[in-house]
C-alpha cells in the first residue's frame, strides 16, 4: 500500500497559493472588525461546507440549515480565529464536523456515507486488490461499521479526495499520524477482502 501514490484525482479546493492565503487573512482581519466583511469568505466556502455536511447525511434541507449554522458559528467566533498560514477552510470544517456530530447525537437523523463506485474501486486499488463486484457490498459494510474517527478518514481521503495535509488539519492530526491511521484501516479492509475472496 502506497498511501502517497496518487491514483485518483484530488480535490483542487484546498490548493491555496501563498497569495490566496494572505488575501484570506486580510479578509478575516476585516471581518473581525465588521461582520459585513465576512461576505467573501461565505461565498468562497459555502459550497464546500455544504458538500461536507451533505456528504454525511441524507436530508438536503437539514444540510442547508446546518451549513447556515456552521457559518453563523464561524462569524460568532471569528474573533478567536488566529491566522497560522493554513486555509480558513480547515477551521470551518472543524466547526462543520462538530455541528454534524452534534446533530446526530441530538436527533434521530441517520449518519450517512455517500460514495461512488469509483471510490470503492480506488480503495481496492489502494489495498492492491483487483476490484470485483462482490467487493462492493463487503466494502460498504466494512466502511459503515467503522468507528466515527476511522470513517472520517476514509470519507475525507477516498470519497472527498482530500490531500493528507488537509485531512490532518481538519482532524487536528499530523500528516504522518493521519497516514498511519489510514494505513491500519486499509490493512484491515485488505484482510477482509482477501478472506472473502478465498
Amino acid at each position: 500500500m502506497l498511501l502517497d501514490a496518487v491514483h485518483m484525482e484530488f480535490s483542487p479546493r484546498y490548493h491555496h497559493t501563498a497569495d490566496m492565503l494572505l488575501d484570506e487573512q486580510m479578509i478575516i482581519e476585516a471581518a473581525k472588525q465588521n461582520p459585513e466583511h465576512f461576505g467573501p469568505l461565505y461565498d468562497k466556502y459555502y459550497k464546500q461546507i455544504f458538500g461536507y455536511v451533505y456528504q454525511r447525511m441524507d436530508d438536503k434541507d437539514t444540510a442547508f440549515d446546518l451549513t447556515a449554522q456552521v457559518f453563523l458559528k464561524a462569524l460568532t467566533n471569528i474573533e478567536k480565529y488566529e491566522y497560522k498560514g493554513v486555509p480558513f477552510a480547515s477551521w470551518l470544517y472543524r466547526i462543520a464536523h462538530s455541528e454534524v456530530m452534534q446533530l446526530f447525537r441530538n436527533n434521530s437523523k441517520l449518519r450517512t456515507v455517500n460514495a461512488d463506485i469509483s471510490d470503492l474501486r480506488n480503495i481496492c486499488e489502494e489495498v492492491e486488490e483487483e476490484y470485483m463486484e462482490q467487493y462492493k457490498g463487503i466494502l460498504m459494510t466494512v466502511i459503515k461499521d467503522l468507528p466515527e474517527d476511522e470513517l472520517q478518514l476514509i470519507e475525507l481521503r477516498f470519497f472527498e479526495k482530500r490531500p493528507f495535509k488537509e485531512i490532518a488539519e481538519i482532524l487536528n492530526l499530523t500528516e504522518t499520524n493521519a497516514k498511519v491511521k489510514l494505513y491500519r484501516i486499509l490493512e484491515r479492509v485488505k484482510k477482509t477482502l482477501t478472506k472473502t475472496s478465498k
Partner: protein
Amino acid sequence: MGTKFNLDRKPVPDDEINSHKDFGELVNKFKKQSIEKARSDVNFLKNKKATYSAIIAGVAVVCTVTYFAVFKKEPPKETANDKIVTTQQQHTTSPENKQNKAFIAPPISKLNVPYTSYKVKAEQGASIKHKSNSKIIIPKKAFVDKQGLDIVGEVEIKYREFHNQADIIASGIPMTYDSAGVQSHFESAGMIDIKGYQNGEPVFINPKKQITVEFSSEHTADKYNMYELDTVAKNWAYLGRDNSLVNKKQLKPNKQSDVKMLEKKESPKAQELQKQIDAIPPKIEAEKITYTQKVNQLPKTIEPNKPSKAIAGRPQFQLEVNYKEFPELQAFKNAVFEVGKENKNYNSKLADITWSSAEVSEGPQKGKNYLLTLKLRERVEKLIVYPALTGADYDKALKSYESKFADYKNLAAKREADEKRLKEEFEAKQTALFEERKKLKEDQVQANIKYWQEQQAKLDEEYSSMGNQEKVVRIFNISRFSIYNSDCPKNLPNDVKINPIYVINEGKSISPSNIYLISHSRNLVYNLPYGQLPYNTNEKYSLCVLAKGKMYLCNKETFSAITTAKQNKIPLTELDANVNDAADLKKAMGI
C-alpha cells in the same frame, strides 16, 4: 446510531446550492444573536443574583459579598472560608478573567517585554546585532507582500527576546505544552518574537528565503528542542531538536582579569596630565640656573687684609714686590716679610746668603701669608712669610685698611641681602612648581579613578547583560514571523501539594487569577490554576501571583521557610510601584 451507505447519489446542482446562499440573512442572524446574547448575559447576572438571594438563609454573608463582587466590582470582605467561593464566582465576570482568555496575555502591560525596532532595506538585507549580542541575519529580498510579490524599500523588523522567568511572566506567553493530551511546562533556554512590517502593514518572509537568528543564550545545556507558538491550535508546535549549539565558549567572561587589565590603563586625561608633570623638573632646573646666574652677577666682595706690625726680633726679609700681581700688598708698600714660626727649615745662615732669585707666591693662607722661594744655583729654599709694617707705614696702612674694610662690610651686607632676596625668589618659584606638580599628580589620580569607574561601570553593564555566565549561540531558522523558543518540557513538581491561602497585608487573604510558581533551580515558570500548589522539596522556588490587576510576590527565602515549616499560609508582598519593566521585575524576584 446506525450508518446508512448511499452509492452513487445524485449531486446537488450548483444552482440549488447557490439559491440557499444568503449572506444578508447570516449577518441579520448574527446581529440578532449578539443582541440576545447581551440581554441573556444581563439576565444571567440578575438570575444569579436572585438565586443567591433565595439561598441567602444560611449563607447571607456569602451572597452579599457575591452581589458586590459582581455588580459593584468592589473587593469583597469575606471570612477565610468564604473567600474561595466568592472569588471563584467573581472570576466568571471580572475583566481580568476576560483578559485571561487572550492566548497571549501580559499580566501587567507596563512590565511587558518591549520590541526593539530595526529598519532594513529589503533589497539589501541586513545583519543586525541586538543588544543581547544576538544577531538577526536577513538575506536580500527576504520579504514578500500579501500578493507574494517581492518587497522593496524599508521594512521594520520588530524583535524581542525572553531570557528568564521575569521575561516569561511579563510577556504573558503561555509556556505550557500539550503533547498527546499530556500537559507539561517549558524550561526555557530562550525565546524570540519577531515580526515584520512595511508602512504599518504586515509583511511575510519570502518562501524561498529564511531569516536566521543567532540567539545568545545563557543556558548552555544540550537538552532543548525548538518550538513555534501555534496561536491557532493554542499550543507549541514541535520543530525539532535544538542541535544548533555553536561556539560554546564564545562569551565566557573573566571579569576579574578584565578589571585588572582596565586598572593598568591610564585615562587619556591622565596621560595628558603626565606630560605637564614631566615638564615641571626642567622648569625647576631652569629657575635654579637663573638664580645661580643672578647670584654670580652680584658684585664680588674681597675682604681687605689687616696690616701686621713688625715684631721686633723676628727674622725679616725685604722684598721687591710686583704690586700688580699682589694688589693686597699695595697696602704694604715698604713692608718687610717676617719668617713664620712654621718654617722649621729656617736658620739665620739663610740671611747671609746672597740668593740669585727670590719669588713670592700665594701662601697657604691666602692674603695672610706668602711663599718665599729663594734660589741659588741648585739650592732652593721655601719659606712661609708674613708681610709686616713698621712705624708710619703701618699707621698709614692701617688707616687705608680701615677705610677699605668699611667699604667691604657695606658691600658684603648688600650682597648678602641681594643673595637672600634671590634665594627667596628662587625658593618661592621652586615651591610653586612643586605644588603645581603635586596638584597635577592628584588630578591625574582623580582622572584615572574617574576613568576606571566609568570603564568599570561599562564593564559591569556588559557583564550584567551577559548574565555573567557562559553563553552559547542557538540558531533559529525562520520561515515565518512568529514566536519561537528553545525549550524542554518538564512535568509539574509532585513531591508535596498544599492547599495554599494567599495572604497580603494584615493577614487579608486574596484569590489570585494567575499563579506563577518560579523555579530558581531551572529557568522555568509553572503557570498554575487556582487550587493546590505543588512543589519539589529539593528545589528553590518563589511565587508571583496576580489578583485584581495587582502583582504580588513571595520571595524564595519566605517560600523556603513556608515549605520547611509545612505551612499553607503564603504571605505576599505587593510589587513595588517602582518596578516598571521586566528587568525591574527580575530584580524584584531575586532572579
